């Protein structure tokens, strides 16, 4: 084994790597703590929370059925606001669904090892968010039984869909994104399912986890292909995750509606999606971390980097808001100018300023290190980001539509109770699925966290361990 050269040693001494798992925990501790969440009895708070979220989910489902049996008239949508809360919610959830695959794919390619403690939960969150998102295009068509017209097959009159339509691209983008996210998530889950199988005390769970783990043996001949598949999936998911929200933004950018017809949309939507997704990961993981005592695995260093990402993407979003405003002024198109003045000073001014405050101003708190390491502030800012990102979509869709060209066609939009409870219902579905996930599957990728421990390195030598440093110094 080659000795590290002097410059590396000096650098390591000046800036020692911060451990990804605190308190020098062993591998067995990681398995016990994380698999224990699934194996132990469900805590009381879990039952209370899931009964609340489950009720919301049930009522949301009732609202969807009411819509199905009555028609889209039960929503507040009108002419000209044909796309309102339905598409706002769709884009909101799709945006949330960006963090998971971003963490798994882009951070994997960048060799950001801290991703290992959050990627599983974030990926699961992605899947559930995309499920919530997929509900809305399905139900907003009104006649839900016609939703199969979205598929790339001819309808009964032998009419094929238009493959050059952004709505068609959207169908492909969202369904591909969901499928690839499921495959990526499941591939990462297989070694941990094997852990669950080997730890199972009850026969039923041994059989179920055993089947789900596909007979994984952890042999290096298996890991060899596994790692290659994981790397390539990360490689192909990277353009995919950037393309999904770009494609969603094409739905708007390729139209002629003032406020939508801008080239800045794809990067601006993607930055906003990452912002909203990371905020949701923090929203879910901060309580989970405390409730399941995962502070040593999901450390303040993890929260710190995620806050920095929120700051970065929030600032990109802020730049996009300002640039949109500037281009509307500089482009000298009277309709565009009006759309942006109306956005910030029209009847929905409060929505726009809420959006701006939550998405651009609040994340600026994270310039201060103490704020990035304060539980309450991090949670508050991520809740602001969640709300702000919903308002961003509301602002873009509803405000742009409600006053487009002819003043005689202008109309205000007001949501109905069905709108409100359908949205709250999807939050219920999302949280219920997430609670079921943390109950039945390991919420932290155990095999990956073990792989970033210092002793996982085949060239690891206890000599370089922090506590033995003093001994070395004494010797010197």
């Amino acid at each position, binding site marked *: 084994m080659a000795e590290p050269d002097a410059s590396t040693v000096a650098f390591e001494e000046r800036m020692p790597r911060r451990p990804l798992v605190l308190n020098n925990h062993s591998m067995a501790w990681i398995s016990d703590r994380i698999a224990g969440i699934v194996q132990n009895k469900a805590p009381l708070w879990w039952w209370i929370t899931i009964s609340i979220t489950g009720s919301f989910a049930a009522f949301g489902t009732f609202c969807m059925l009411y819509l199905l049996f009555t028609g889209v008239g039960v929503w507040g949508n009108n002419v000209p606001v044909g796309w309102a809360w339905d598409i706002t919610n769709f884009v909101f959830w799709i945006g949330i669904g960006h963090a998971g695959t971003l963490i798994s794919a882009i951070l994997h390619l960048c060799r950001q090892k801290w991703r290992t403690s959050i990627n599983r939960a974030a990926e699961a969150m992605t899947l559930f968010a995309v499920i919530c998102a997929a509900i809305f295009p399905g139900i907003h068509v009104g006649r839900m039984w016609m939703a199969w017209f979205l598929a*790339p097959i001819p309808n009964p009159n032998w009419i094929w869909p238009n493959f*050059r339509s952004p709505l068609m691209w959207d169908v*492909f983008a969202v369904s591909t994104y969901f*499928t690839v996210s499921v495959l990526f998530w499941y591939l990462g889950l297989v070694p941990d399912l094997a852990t669950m199988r080997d730890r199972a005390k009850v026969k039923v769970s041994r059989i179920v986890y*055993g089947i789900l783990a596909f007979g*994984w043996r952890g042999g290096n001949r298996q890991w*060899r292909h596994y*790692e290659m598949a994981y790397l390539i999936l990360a490689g192909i998911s990277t353009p995919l995750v950037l393309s999904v929200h770009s494609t969603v933004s094409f739905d708007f950018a390729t139209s002629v509606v003032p406020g939508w017809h801008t080239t800045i949309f794809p990067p601006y939507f993607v930055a906003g999606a990452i912002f909203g997704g990371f905020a949701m990961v923090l929203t879910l993981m901060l309580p989970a971390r405390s409730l399941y005592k995962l502070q040593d695995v999901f450390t303040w260093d993890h929260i710190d980097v995620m806050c920095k990402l929120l700051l970065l993407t929030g600032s990109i979003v802020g730049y996009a808001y300002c640039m949109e405003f500037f281009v509307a002024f500089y482009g000298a198109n009277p309709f565009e100018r009006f759309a942006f003045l109306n956005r910030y000073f029209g009847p929905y001014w409060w929505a726009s300023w809420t959006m701006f405050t939550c998405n651009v101003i609040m994340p600026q708190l994270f310039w201060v290190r103490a704020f990035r390491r304060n539980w309450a502030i991090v949670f508050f800012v991520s809740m602001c980001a969640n709300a702000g990102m919903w308002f961003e979509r509301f602002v873009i869709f509803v405000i742009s539509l409600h006053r487009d060209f002819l003043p005689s066609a202008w109309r205000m939009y007001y949501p109905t109770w069905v709108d409100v409870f359908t949205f709250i219902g999807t939050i219920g579905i999302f949280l219920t699925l997430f609670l079921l996930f943390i109950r039945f599957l390991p919420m932290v990728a155990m095999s990956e966290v073990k792989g970033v421990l210092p002793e*996982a390195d*085949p060239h690891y030598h206890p000599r370089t361990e922090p506590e033995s440093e003093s001994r070395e110094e004494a010797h010197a």
Partner: protein
Amino acid sequence: MSAAAAERSVFGVIAEFPSATALFGAAEKVRDQGYRFWDVHSPFPIHGMNKAMGLGKSTLGYIIFCGGFTGFATAVLLEFIPSSYLYPLIVHGKPVNFFTVPPFLPIMFELTVLLSAFTAFFGVFLMNRLPRLHHPLFDFEPFKRVTNDAFFLAIEAVDPKFSEIGTREFLEEIGGQGVTVLYEND
């Protein structure tokens, strides 16, 4: 060896190693000894183990490329056959020809990614000959810890250099603990 065990054919010999470092060193020695049918088992992929075992890079990438290309070709056919022949649509006054390819690209991209991902997922399991319901290694009770914190090295009896006694001694010599002979499933 008991009489019952003698009736079953030997699967191989397994040894436990105390750490990833020890397993890595042992793998290099087994490789240098010229064994071919053997594997190391660990709770996580060990960096550099492919080289220590004398294995090359996984060929899965080439298979995934084929899958991705199939997806791309599917998208080309799926888009151009209906748009040009079955139901030609003139949108924005634009015909379907080479110059109007850009609006067809998103779907080509999506299907390329989709079929690459399917190939990657199913490829990794097919190449590992999984799923399978049972394996002789699972008969070895301590092997349950391989998904927790234990490291094992198993040499299979099909290896030409394998001999029940010789291989056993060899594994003990290179630091293997609890060396055990495993038998095939009935």
